[in-house]
């Protein structure tokens, strides 16, 4: 029987993978995808818990998260394009003009 714990564990693993991805990947797009993984793991948690606690709030939350993720994607990609235009790179290690 797959209990809520399994869902939670899975989402925790996904979340960790996402986090580690953010910490280790260099390509901005990949990092962004990792963040999406994190958000989706949260979505999974919400849905599982929604079922577990027996109300809809969690599922509604997921809708909002998805919407927001879409908006973020739009803005994020736009920013990346702008940056790429100037530096011809989307390696995050190239964002280091501003430091100290």
């Amino acid at each position, binding site marked *: 029987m797959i209990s809520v714990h399994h869902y939670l564990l899975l989402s925790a693993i996904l979340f960790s993978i*996402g986090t580690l991805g953010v910490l280790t990947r260099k390509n901005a797009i990949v990092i962004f995808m990792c963040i999406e993984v994190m958000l989706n793991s949260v979505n999974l*948690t919400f849905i599982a818990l929604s079922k577990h*606690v027996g109300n809809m*709030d969690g599922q509604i*939350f997921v809708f909002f998260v998805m919407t927001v993720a879409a908006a973020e994607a739009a803005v994020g990609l736009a*920013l990346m394009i*702008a940056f790429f235009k100037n*530096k011809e790179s989307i390696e995050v290690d190239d964002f280091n003009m501003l430091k100290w």
Partner: protein
Amino acid sequence: MDANLVQEAIQNVNFSAIMPSLVLSVFGMVLLLVSVFSQRGKTTPIAWLSFIALVITGIVTLSGWNNPQAGFAGSVLLDNFATFFNMICIIAAALTILMSDNYLKREGYPVGEYYALILFTTAGAMWMASGTDLMTIFLGLEVLSVSLYVLAGFFRDQTRSNEAGLKYFFLGAFSTGFLLYGVALLYGVTGTTKIHGIAEYVAANSAASSNIMFIAGGMLLLTGFLFKVAAAPFHMWTPDVYQGAPTPITAFMSAGPKAAAFAAFIRVTMVALESMQADITAVFWVLAVLTMTAGNFIALSQKDIKRMLAYSSISHAGYALVGLVAWNEIGYTGIMFYMLVYTFMNMGAFAVLVLIGKKGEDNLTVDGVKGMGYKRPVLAIALSIFLLSLMGMPPTAGFAGKFYIFAAAVKSGYIWLAVIGVLNSAVSLYYYLRVMVSMYFKDAEEDFSWAVMNTGTAISIVIAIAGVLLLGVLPGPVMEMAKLAGF
């Protein structure tokens, strides 16, 4: 669906609870349309229009004073607390707009969307401040953040601005992940995302407060807010973003959104997570010290004034955290007062910087303002007043604000925290003084002929000075308001 339920839901909606942000959003959309159809470069009317929008919103907001409105099934609560923070955001936005018009023209980006984005940001901030459901708070936060990502990277031809936008975007989204995960865990334990609901659940089930999921969830949620208010160790985006973003946006970020974040932060912490008070204060004690210290110490070696003010804003977040640690009414109303004061003094300082910057703003360094006191005496005096206020020197508002916060800490017995706080202020004196040293004690190398006063910026500076001095000398009425704004 049951007709009664629908009826109830409709009654629960209560648009007056979101009236301010609604008004602002509508204006924002109108502005978007207007800017589409307006000629490029002719943004002054749009700027004034957005200013008027803010004034109207301000009136709407203030009319709700002492008339709390709940709505949307308890996910929005427009009480005095929210109103107070809303006003801070509105003032911040208004001051930003006033100083932006000329700035945008100088930097070569005279586009109307800028103003619309500011209004959206403000609307998001207001949702955040009046949200009583983690969902509304999250939504507000994201509306605010997404708009700010754009604003930070607004100068799309400037690598610096791009970089600021991207860094802010990535780290912001990253921290959102944590915040959301925290919300999810809390939801899992309590079955609700309403902050009062969480509090009630914990009150009813005392075991919940020791539930690992609850604790972890609460903490993850708080890290999201700590990121927004730029508390160590989640502060690292701040200097880079503040430095790279367009200066008025930097000013705005340091005041409005931060205030809103604090609003939600306070509400969530002190209502939903009240049961964790002992643990939270212990951690925040450390974080407050870290934040103040990191901000102040690193600011000492900065040459770029914008970046320096970014670090300074970190340290001010640290002072504000002290108010949270105190965990009493004086503490959080102190934060409210402090945020208002900070809005005036910090935005005032940025307004002056906006005015004295050359295109590209490479001259906004400590050495770049050499002798300004003699070439542009009025501006220099204004900047000095703001810096003195940031230092916390009486009789400016900065002192009253710090006093308020430290009073709260002392009252709750956190004397050492207060001592560390004041010692940190002492350290901070140095870097603020450095700017004044450069302005007054060094001979001018340039004539500052480009620093020409314009109406908008002048108004913003005057408002800021008035705020700084008035709140410094006669802080009573506003403090009284802050007190009344307690929830």
